[in-house]
């Protein structure tokens, strides 16, 4: 019996228009923890989805336990002994622990119809004893903490006699104490010969728990390193290390003087004690990994989520309880999902541009149509929106032009503070440049901009100053001249 439980070679996978994986390899030994790391979009999830049968590979081979496999669904992978614990736990909250673990395999009578609940709970109890886990099979999942729920998922995976266990960001929602418990379980699993693929952004955790580290970048395999002899810094530079030099903005920090927005101790469900300020004419970049809490900061400032803490605009304390308040104070928010939150796709360019400013065009009863048309045309011209006319339905425009419509909407509303959440998401390369130019033009005209972006190159290209977040907290602030991909990434993965 070879020590290798899994060998994936030359895995290729394309989605329409995107090459997600190109010649990726990965090997895994029995009883080891292999950390799989990479930036957002590096291809980790796609690779794991192929291994667990959620996606099918285009090319390449998967040798598992000496045999070539190609699972076509999760159940097939599970029966082979390959299990994944997703970051969003896949449990039925209204069912009990035992019901969840044995769903689809519950003990039944001869008719295969009536349930034997006593046996079900007994089996669960036996499983927990074997695993040395302290859980009551009869408790409903919704009554458990996230850490306990995760243990249910682990127990479920092991009840399939898992030989490979994939954990996707398992510690994201855990407290330090709970993390220790999890690591105890992982160490026990290792002794039992279970191989673990551990996906995490927390570098210091990888140091503690993993045996080897495999790095991926842009859908490609980069390297595999033994954890013991590897420095975190090394791993980070492998993660981000694009050869291409990137354009970095030359920004003069003294140019900006007036604070237009001050945020102090912003705290809610998702974010903890976030404080920062924004100056007039400045582009303030928010960097961090997906889920770092950047969007949540934007939503709080915009009044979309409740929060505690205070916000000052132009030196004056303001109360923002709902988006209406924020708009009144001149804040415009451009959602990362403009199709859902930014636009009425079935309505025209004109209607979308003026939607937030309608009262301005209305007499007591009627909407003044001619003014609307003139203004809509002016703004769509100023932002170079490519549309046959302002009567075109927004649905028919390209992503870049749709984004411009959202910008036009807030400009017409006279917003001085604009929050862009992933402004170039889903926009092709050529149009991205146009959006960049537009953002710079707006800043030069004295608009103050907060830009949230998960693309480091974009952050460095546009920001005058950069705030880095992780796990709902601000982990650092950098002037553009001091920032580079490495130190941003280090702050973005810093766990405190």
């Amino acid at each position, binding site marked *: 019996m070879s020590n290798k439980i899994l060998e994936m070679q030359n895995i290729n996978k394309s989605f329409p228009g995107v090459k997600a994986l190109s010649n990726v390899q990965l090997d895994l030994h029995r009883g080891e923890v292999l950390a799989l790391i990479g930036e957002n979009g590096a291809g980790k999830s796609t690779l794991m989805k192929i291994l667990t049968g959620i996606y099918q590979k285009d090319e390449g081979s998967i040798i598992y336990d000496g045999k070539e496999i190609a699972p076509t*669904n*999760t*159940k097939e992978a*599970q029966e082979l002994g390959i299990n994944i614990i997703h*970051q969003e736990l*896949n*449990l*039925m*909250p*209204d*069912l009990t622990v035992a*019901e969840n673990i044995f*769903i*689809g395999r*519950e003990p*039944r009578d001869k008719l*295969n*119809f*009536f*349930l034997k*609940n006593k046996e079900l709970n007994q089996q669960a109890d036996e499983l927990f004893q074997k695993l040395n886990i302290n859980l009551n099979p009869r408790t*409903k999942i*919704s*009554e*458990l*903490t*996230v850490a306990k729920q995760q243990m249910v998922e682990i127990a479920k995976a092991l009840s399939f006699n898992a030989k490979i266990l994939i954990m996707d*960001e398992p510690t*994201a*929602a855990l407290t330090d104490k709970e993390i220790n418990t999890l690591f105890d379980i992982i160490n026990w699993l290792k002794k039992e010969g279970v191989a673990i693929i551990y996906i995490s952004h927390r570098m210091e955790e990888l140091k503690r728990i993993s045996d080897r580290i495999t790095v991926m970048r842009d859908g490609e395999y980069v390297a595999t390193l033994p954890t013991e002899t590897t420095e975190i810094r090394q791993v980070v530079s492998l993660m981000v290390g694009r050869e291409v030099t990137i354009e970095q903005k030359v920004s003069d920090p003294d140019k900006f003087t007036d604070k237009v927005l001050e945020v102090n101790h912003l705290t809610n*469900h*998702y974010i903890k004690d976030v404080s920062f300020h924004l100056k007039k004419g400045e582009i303030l970049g928010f960097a961090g990994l*997906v*889920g770092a*809490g950047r*969007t*949540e900061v934007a939503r709080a400032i915009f009044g979309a989520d409740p929060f505690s803490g205070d916000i000052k605009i132009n030196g004056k304390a303001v109360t923002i309880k709902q988006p209406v308040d924020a708009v009144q104070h001149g804040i415009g928010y451009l959602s990362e999902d403009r199709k859902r939150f930014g636009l009425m796709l079935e309505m025209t360019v004109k209607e979308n541009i003026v939607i937030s400013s309608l009262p301005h065009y209305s007499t007591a009863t009627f909407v003044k149509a001619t003014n609307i048309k003139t203004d809509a045309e002016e703004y769509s011209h100023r932002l170079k929106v490519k549309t046959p006319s302002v009567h075109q339905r927004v649905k028919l425009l390209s992503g870049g032009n749709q984004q411009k419509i959202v910008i036009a909407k807030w400009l017409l509303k006279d917003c001085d503070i604009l929050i862009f959440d992933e402004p170039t998401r889903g926009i092709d390369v050529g149009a991205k440049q146009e959006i960049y130019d537009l953002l710079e033009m707006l800043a030069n005209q004295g608009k103050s901009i907060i830009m949230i972006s998960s693309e480091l190159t974009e952050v460095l290209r546009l920001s005058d100053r950069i705030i880095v977040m992780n*796990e*709902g907290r601000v982990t650092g602030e950098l002037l553009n001249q001091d920032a580079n991909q490495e130190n941003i990434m280090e702050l973005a993965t810093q766990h405190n």
Partner: protein
Amino acid sequence: MSTLTSNPSASDQRKKLVSSGALQQILAFASLIILVIFFSIASENFLQWSNIEGILLSTTVIGILALGTTFVIITGGIDLSIGTGMTLTSVMTGVFIVFLGLPVHVGIIGGIVTGALIGFISGFSVSILRIPPFIATLAMMMIAEGLSLVISGASPIYFSDVEGFNNIALGSVFLGAIPNAVLIFFIMVLIGWILLSKTIVGRYTFSIGSNEEATRLSGINIKKWKMIIYTIAGCFTGVAGVIMASRLNSAQPALGMGYELEAIAAVVIGGTSLSGGKGSLIGTMIGALIMSVLTNGLRIMSIPQEWQTVVIGFVILLAVYFDMLRKKDS
């Protein structure tokens, strides 16, 4: 999207006192008791046996419809076709027994099978054709309404010549005191309760409603089970249809529209969550009883029918509001 979650330990402790689903049931049961006490003080006629019998009898049809649709609602779906579906099963029972002259028991089975078929088609539309339950069953509601009128020629089918048909609902095999319809209602509660809590059908009903995607990823054929669940609800519709026909001693093709909403109201009052995953048939039974106690009590107090409807409307509003509060908690 965030990776952070709430501090679970606090809510943990609160929930241990009493699970929120049970709380709603206790509330519903308490409301029923309070209503009964209130009406018995307000009117001395209320607690007369004949009145109680009347209340129970008027609960049966809506009650049985509500039991069936509880299954569907727990999966996170809805079934609007049960009202006119019930009518169609009444009409088909009439067709089998009166038009075709088949024996009574064959007619009854035929009626129930008709109900099952209606449920099956709804289930097929929802799970295979992926039509949202609201639309699929709205369409089924109209189809059943139309078919009832077409098949019956838009006039009632009378069972007057069928001996003993009226006794199915109004006779009394049990102690000679309780009408059969009431007995059947309680038997249906029992059957439903066993199905929901003791069989795999029930387990998957809750599982699908609790997290459909996770259920699917657990290797459960959710399409198949949804069809089964809608078909079971259809069987309940069939039973309700037969009882309706027997009570009226006729199949009334123009009746039935609106029954579905009363049934859904009973389900909601009984603590079943419209967002799925939570619910119980005992709750639904209590919900149905609350509705008929209210109607009956208000009538005894000589409150005009128009106002009875208004009151019931407010009760539904209140019940759904509690459901929302519960969701916010979890």
